[in-house]
């Protein structure tokens, strides 16, 4: 297979883009697409102070590397230690080495200190799925920590696969509140206590980040979260990958469809007013329920009159 640009031997094929790249042009294409996504969606402003949530995995480290390269002086890193034995201590070492090498300001928070107990402790006492507790507290501490670091944006390493999975998960679980908050710049509320999250890698597949990481010879983690098997996301990931194998572009199309939908949804102005008759919320002066009730009573009255 030849590189779509220079016709040299390709090292990666991206079926969803109908392209293949040699090493050099893959790196160029990868970085160009991430930069274009950041600029198109105005994810970073020149006055922004960005805190990158870093786990030590390929996505968060790639994002940290690129944002620090493009926006020097505006980027810091923040790691949340959930307290997962035989896992997180290894990835934290990778992060600490990485930020030292690239001279990036770094802070670490832990569940134990910030919440009062580790994820391992939660899982011993509560019966729910570990990821459901982990996600809640991780977002909580990321937001709190980023705010303390005076951040204006939190960058998270969600890639195209993650985003397609999240869309499907929210549909499967009827999570409509979470559903409308997604997108390249997530969160629909402007509030000084809430730091909005950006997703620079949202249009890049997980496979590409892995290839970028390999070619760049970045230190990759070989540790897998012991709770991953319990995650609903794990099943959705497998389902989407099985489908993508024979239907290239499925994951990208899920995200594109979401974006088209949400664009129209967010443009719609919903003015809530209250019904003049019953005082319930509605979109017009008199609510539909009151209009139907009025019609019903009027017909009843007329019928009565006819009979009389």
């Amino acid at each position, binding site marked *: 297979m030849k590189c779509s640009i220079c016709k040299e031997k390709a*090292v*990666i094929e991206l079926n969803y883009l109908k392209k293949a790249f040699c090493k050099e042009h893959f790196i160029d294409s990868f970085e160009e697409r991430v930069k274009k996504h950041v600029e198109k969606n105005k994810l970073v402003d020149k006055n922004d102070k960005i805190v990158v949530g870093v786990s030590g*995995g*390929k996505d968060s480290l790639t994002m940290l590397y690129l944002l620090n390269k493009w926006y020097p002086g505006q980027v810091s890193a923040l790691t949340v230690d959930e307290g997962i034995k035989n896992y997180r201590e290894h990835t934290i070492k990778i992060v600490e080495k990485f930020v030292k090498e690239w001279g990036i300001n770094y802070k670490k928070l832990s569940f134990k200190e910030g919440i009062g107990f580790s994820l391992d402790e939660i899982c011993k006492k509560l019966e729910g799925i570990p990821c459901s507790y982990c996600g809640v507290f991780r977002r909580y501490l990321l937001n709190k920590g980023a705010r303390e670091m005076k951040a204006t944006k939190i960058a998270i390493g969600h890639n195209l696969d993650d985003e397609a999975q999240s869309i499907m998960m929210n549909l499967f679980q009827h999570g409509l509140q979470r559903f409308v908050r997604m997108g390249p710049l997530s969160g629909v509320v402007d509030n000084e206590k809430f730091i909005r999250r950006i997703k620079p890698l949202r249009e890049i597949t997980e*496979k590409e980040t*892995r290839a970028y990481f390999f070619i760049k010879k970045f230190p*990759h983690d070989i540790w897998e*979260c012991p709770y*991953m098997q319990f995650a609903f996301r794990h099943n959705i990931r497998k389902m989407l990958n099985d489908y993508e194998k024979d239907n290239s572009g499925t994951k990208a199309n899920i995200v594109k469809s979401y974006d088209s939908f949400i664009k129209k949804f967010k443009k719609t102005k919903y003015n809530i007013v209250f019904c003049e008759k019953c005082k319930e919320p509605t979109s017009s002066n008199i609510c539909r329920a009151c209009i139907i009730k009025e019609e019903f009573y009027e017909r009843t009255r007329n019928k009565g009159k006819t009979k009389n």
Partner: protein
Amino acid sequence: MEILIQGKKRKVKNSVLSEIMNEINVNPEEFLVVRDNELITSDTKINNGDSLELLSIVSGG
């Protein structure tokens, strides 16, 4: 022919990477393949005795 996958000997019937992946039931959406420290594409001809490394795309949790 016989090849090495993750350092383990394995007999395969096919000789093109995409067919071998299918034969050993590995989804190319979940793994990249490395030969001689280089990533290779699905149309690559695999030779007897080649050593392949499967890089898991999913990491972390």
